[in-house]
């Protein structure tokens, strides 16, 4: 016996919020497309908040010994900035694209678990609101996004901020695990006929691999969060050395999650680049197998590198050497990807659409961020630069240089599919150039500040040579960075109203999502052709030279 609830079929691609049932349709929807769109809007909303927090920090740091913010305020703001950008912007942005696109790209009409999908989104959303409620409830968390014990214990952090931090991330984590589970099952069970796992579009492949990372990493974090909550609320002492706990355990637990998390935010971005670069180079991805296999290598290695965040703890040379080796090894599969993407461009016929510009800039920015990351695997370099502004430069070159650059590439690439309108290329190119220049001006100087001896997470700094002028330069550039975000938002609203009609396949792309209408109807596909190769739409459009007929693809 099975029960089924009668859910009325939605008929509109976009229920209007102001229509009779529009609002209800949005909040009750289980359609992966509407949920994906809600993820993306929330990510943009929190991006604005996270950026505002960054701007407050930059104003405080513009001059040495500035008193714009008190230390308490500054410490809350930098904690909220990091937590927001990671858990409330990049994670939902990438999960949002995956939720929207994964079923479409494998020729499915829904996710495997539509209600779990909605649950995941609302857990994330309310988790985010709970985190921000802490401002009204006695103080936001103030111990950094990795919340090192024992500073995060009740004795050292008496406001309820850390409780809100742990609970909201726990809630969001449950949502993220739900999303990961959904991606795995959907990819395994809902593929169109003929679409074997070896023919998956690379974005789907990377989301699929990534989902396993989510399933393995987030439960570890959740366990740690429960431990810190028990410590704080029930007076236990997991992490209090004075009463028999260990402060180092928290670091192990957090980074066992935390380092895979970096890849959780990077792999889908790599997937985006692997879709965008081939289409705008008019060539298939160079070395599909290498790109796919290196993803698995990164995923597996990412669980053996966590202690490179702990080289300064003093855990011994042998211990450090092991984690140095594993962390350096990750550079290899990552480097493979970079060169495969470049080789994809090589010999192509490159169209400089905004999406492609972001993807190409990503190749360079992420190389810088990746290489400074390998620097931290070299233990003695880490002993000089960890916890300085050099790290701040590094994480921004990875999280912005990879995740956000690819996020913008994805936005320009899939906006026509999602809305049926093209984003303005004119505003887009302006957005790109302002963004790429101001991003580098803001963050490149952080490398130098770190070398000069400026530690991270300081609310102010002494008036030593160059510190003031470099910080001022960064602050001014950050303001320009803000303008580029405004250009992007303006572009969205402008193009929604005045944008050109996109048609089904404006980029002449090759994956299944471009087969259906733009925007897709609530039911994605009526018929999906039998998939014979990795580029089904190429096969359809080139019956004289389909991929599946090629004998020696190498």
């Amino acid at each position, binding site marked *: 016996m099975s029960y089924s609830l009668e859910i009325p079929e939605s008929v509109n691609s976009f229920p209007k919020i102001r229509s009779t049932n529009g609002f209800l349709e949005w909040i009750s929807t289980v359609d992966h497309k509407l949920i994906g769109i809600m993820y993306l809007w929330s990510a943009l909303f929190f991006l604005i908040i996270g950026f505002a927090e960054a701007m407050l920090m930059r104003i405080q740091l513009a001059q040495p010994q500035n008193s714009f913010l008190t230390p308490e305020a500054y410490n809350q703001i930098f904690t909220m900035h990091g937590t927001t950008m990671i858990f409330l912007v990049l994670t939902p942005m990438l999960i949002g694209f995956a939720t929207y696109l994964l079923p479409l790209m494998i020729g499915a009409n829904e996710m495997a678990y539509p209600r779990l999908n909605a649950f995941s989104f609302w857990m994330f959303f309310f988790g985010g609101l709970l985190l921000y409620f802490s401002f009204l409830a006695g103080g936001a968390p103030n111990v950094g996004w990795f919340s090192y014990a024992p500073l995060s214990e009740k004795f050292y952090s008496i406001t309820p901020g850390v409780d809100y931090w742990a609970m909201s991330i726990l809630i969001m984590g449950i949502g993220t695990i739900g999303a990961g589970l959904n991606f795995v099952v959907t990819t395994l069970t809902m593929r169109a006929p003929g679409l074997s796992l070896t023919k998956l579009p690379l974005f789907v492949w990377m989301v699929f691999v990534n989902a396993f990372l989510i399933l393995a990493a987030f439960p570890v974090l959740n366990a740690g969060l429960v431990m810190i909550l028990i410590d704080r609320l029930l007076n236990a002492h997991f992490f209090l050395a004075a009463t028999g706990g260990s402060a180092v355990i928290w670091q192990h637990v957090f980074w066992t999650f935390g380092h895979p998390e970096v890849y959780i935010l990077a792999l889908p971005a790599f997937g985006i680049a692997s879709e965008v670069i081939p289409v705008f180079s008019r060539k298939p991805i160079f070395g599909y197998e290498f790109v796919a296999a290196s993803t698995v290598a990164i995923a597996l290695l990412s669980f053996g590198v966590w202690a490179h965040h702990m080289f300064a703890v003093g855990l011994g040379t042998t211990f450090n050497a092991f984690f140095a080796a594993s962390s350096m090894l990750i550079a290899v599969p990552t480097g493979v990807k970079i060169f495969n993407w470049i080789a994809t461009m090589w010999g192509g016929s490159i169209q400089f659409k905004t999406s492609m510009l972001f993807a190409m800039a990503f190749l360079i920015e992420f190389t810088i961020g990746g290489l400074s990351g390998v620097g931290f695997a070299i233990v*003695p370099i880490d*002993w000089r630069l960890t916890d300085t502004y050099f790290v701040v430069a590094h994480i921004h070159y990875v999280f912005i240089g990879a995740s956000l650059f690819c996020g913008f590439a994805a936005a320009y690439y899939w906006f026509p599919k999602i809305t049926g309108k093209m984003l303005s290329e004119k505003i887009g190119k302006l957005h790109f150039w302002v963004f790429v220049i101001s991003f580098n001006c803001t963050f490149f100087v952080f490398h130098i500040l770190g070398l000069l001896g400026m530690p991270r997470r300081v609310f102010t700094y002494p008036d030593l040579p160059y510190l003031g002028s470099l910080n001022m330069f960064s602050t001014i550039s950050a303001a320009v960075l803000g303008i580029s975000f405004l250009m992007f938002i303006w572009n969205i609203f402008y193009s929604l109203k005045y944008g050109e009609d996109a048609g089904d396949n404006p980029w002449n792309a090759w994956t299944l999502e471009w087969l259906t209408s733009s925007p897709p109807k609530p039911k994605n596909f009526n018929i999906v052709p039998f998939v014979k190769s990795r580029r089904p739409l190429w096969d359809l459009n080139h019956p004289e030279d389909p991929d599946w007929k090629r004998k020696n693809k190498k």
Partner: protein
Amino acid sequence: MQQFVNFFTNLFSSASSEAYNINTLFLRYMILAGFIVLLVTSLVIIGAFKYRAKKNTKEPEQVFGNQKLELTWTVLPLLAVTFFFFLTVKTMSEINRPFQKNEKPDIVIIAHQWWWDMRYPKYNVETANELHIPVGKNLLTRIESADVIHDWWVPELGRKIDAVPGRINYTWIDADKPGVYSGTCSEYCGAQHAWMRIRVVAESQNDFNNWIKAQQKIPSFPKDSTAIKGAELFQTKTCANCHYISGTPADASIGPNLTHFASRKTMLSGMLTNTDKNLKRWLKDPQKVKRGAHMPDFLLSKKEVNELASYIEGLK
């Protein structure tokens, strides 16, 4: 140009073999990293120009890969990281030189929210925030924490090392030329993390011996009446519950040791220069000067502030 060169050499100046080794390794890695960034950037830009779409062209040749090429760019990075792994292990063992299990440390550093307790167990001397060391000596240093995690970092003198509650860490401190080296706490440790700076004075063995001798002396009891009042206030206003001044009943070590406070150049962990005005400002309202610091406001009157300051400034 000259300015740029100076700037660059300053960035990588070192005053100990540890720091020198770290900087050398860093510069070697920078050469490789710089080369790769240049390579990738030029490949992307040259590729973009060379293969830009021309009008009315058909689809380019569909190339799916080239295993030989791909193996090349898998193996080459592997060789590069192997080389740097070798350098990593070598440099690590050069910096973390071994020591005898029962070797007594020359210096013990205990990190507190937001100051450094510095002890010389061999001389029975204790000071705060300003470390004096003799040039050319390798000093075994033990690092501990009294509360949360802190991190000892003086870039020109070598590696950083965490001060973790419940753990004891050892490192070597040495300077090969005299000078004043500035450092800072490098692990976020709460409200005043920014003002937990370090000042290391490296001096000749002679100067160091003199300094130690001066530190070992018990400060003489004040003679002028204001300072005598201050000395009484120090004991009665509960300053003595947290601070240590040798030769007096004040023997706690919750706050910095004040025995020779007046001999220090800075106060509040490098936040302010040690002047009469700053000291009075601090005593008048500690939370206004360094918010969050663990010294409470004792609501001292102006007269009391003057008396206390006069006493403390006599602690040379």
